[in-house]
């Protein structure tokens, strides 16, 4: 078991090193995130949006930049057939999934780390009231989103398709995540202290179900 964990860490480290080497995705995705936040913010009339609108703006930026990250980390494997080299190594394919999931989550967090301050700067979202709560909710949502995104990125990209398809596949499936997290964050910032148990349950259930299902399904889907 420890070997598998070490191997998936190795794969994730390799992805992040490639990313730090070219920094091509990070810059592209961050600019896109900022663009989305700006467009949506101006679309909302530029004045300070309240809780749900703020989280919605951030959410749309996270989702689209997340999808780009998933595509890039899979494209790196496809480029020179490196995926065949990976599949040839004596390791279970679930390990490859965990490695890619880890690098995707780290990339998404890095991108969110840049977009969120921009959102705060432009629109004055005051996350100060419960920053940890916001971080926890967004963290869990991104984990669930990356779980589904990594699985479908392995499939969709392998048929060399245009970008839009991955977003179209992942968004409907992750709608429950979007609803649950926006309900939770808006409740957090609306001040009414009633903790929305069922929304949190949806979040936890989504992460649990789709981490397991994607991890199992990856085996069937990945081909050189």
């Amino acid at each position, binding site marked *: 078991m420890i070997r598998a964990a070490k191997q998936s860490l190795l794969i994730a480290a390799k992805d992040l090193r490639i990313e730090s080497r070219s920094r091509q995705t990070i810059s592209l995705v961050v600019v896109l995130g900022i663009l989305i936040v700006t467009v949506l913010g101006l679309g909302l009339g530029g004045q300070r949006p309240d809780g749900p609108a703020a989280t919605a703006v951030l959410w749309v930026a996270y989702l689209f930049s997340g999808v780009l990250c998933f595509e890039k980390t899979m494209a790196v494997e496809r480029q020179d057939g490196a995926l065949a080299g990976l599949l040839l190594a004596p390791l279970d394919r679930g390990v490859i999934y965990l490695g890619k999931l880890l690098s995707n989550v780290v990339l998404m967090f890095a991108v969110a780390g840049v977009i969120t301050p921009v959102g705060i700067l432009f629109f004055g979202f005051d996350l100060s009231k419960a920053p940890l709560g916001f971080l926890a909710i967004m963290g869990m949502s991104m984990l669930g989103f990356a779980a589904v995104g990594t699985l479908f990125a392995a499939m969709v990209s392998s048929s060399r398709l245009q970008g839009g398809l991955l977003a179209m*596949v992942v968004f*409907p499936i992750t709608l429950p995540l979007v609803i*649950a997290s926006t309900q939770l964050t808006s409740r957090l910032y609306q001040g009414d202290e009633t903790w929305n148990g069922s929304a949190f349950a949806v979040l936890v259930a989504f992460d649990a179900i789709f981490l397991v299902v*994607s991890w199992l399904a990856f085996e069937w889907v990945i081909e050189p």
Partner: protein
Amino acid sequence: MPQQNNGLLRAFWAVTLLALAAAVAVLIAYTPDEATMGPVQKIFYLHLPLAINTFLACLLVFVASIGYLWQRSVWWDDLAVAGAKVAVLLCSGVLITGMIWGKSAWGLWWTWSPRLTFSLMLWLLYVVYLTVRASVESGQRRAVVGAVYGITAFLDVPLVWLSARLMPDIHPSSITLSGEMKLTLALWFLPVTLMTFGLIIARFRLNRIIRDTTDETQRGFEPVNLHVSEGIA
């Protein structure tokens, strides 16, 4: 063999249309109007069977997707796509009847009530299934992507239902049904379910025939790309 099959099919559709006619007659003549909402409530007897059959069709896609991944035979894949097309059709029915009912009851074509939100999300899930399939070229790749999506989408349905209920709800939940109303509901289940499975079988048989003709044409002649006609319809 096909001759005997057609006879069976014709009989099946005759029975279905008969059951439909009976249900319509009962609806018009026998079922009383609901006290609070009036005659518009009668949409319920079509709305609910459509919703339940949508769920059955989604379940069929789920089972067929697992079947494909397990046995890798194209038979399962054709069944899954037939189920998905009928699921989207039925879900459109659910949405339309729901919106018409909403327009009459609250004067708005669309509100983010849990039931309507759930139907919309379900509709999106399975329309994306068809779009994804249509845009993957190689047959085997399309079947695998479709199968995994079919499974994931179905596992997502309970979560979609739960998250839809998180939305603020403005109208009363279910109303109590009198004896006659329950009978009408039962009567309406029969034709709608028969039509659902009739359409799925029809679409499935058509997929099988198209696949055979494409194989035949591709073996000897210049390949006739019949799959273009499959597309979304």
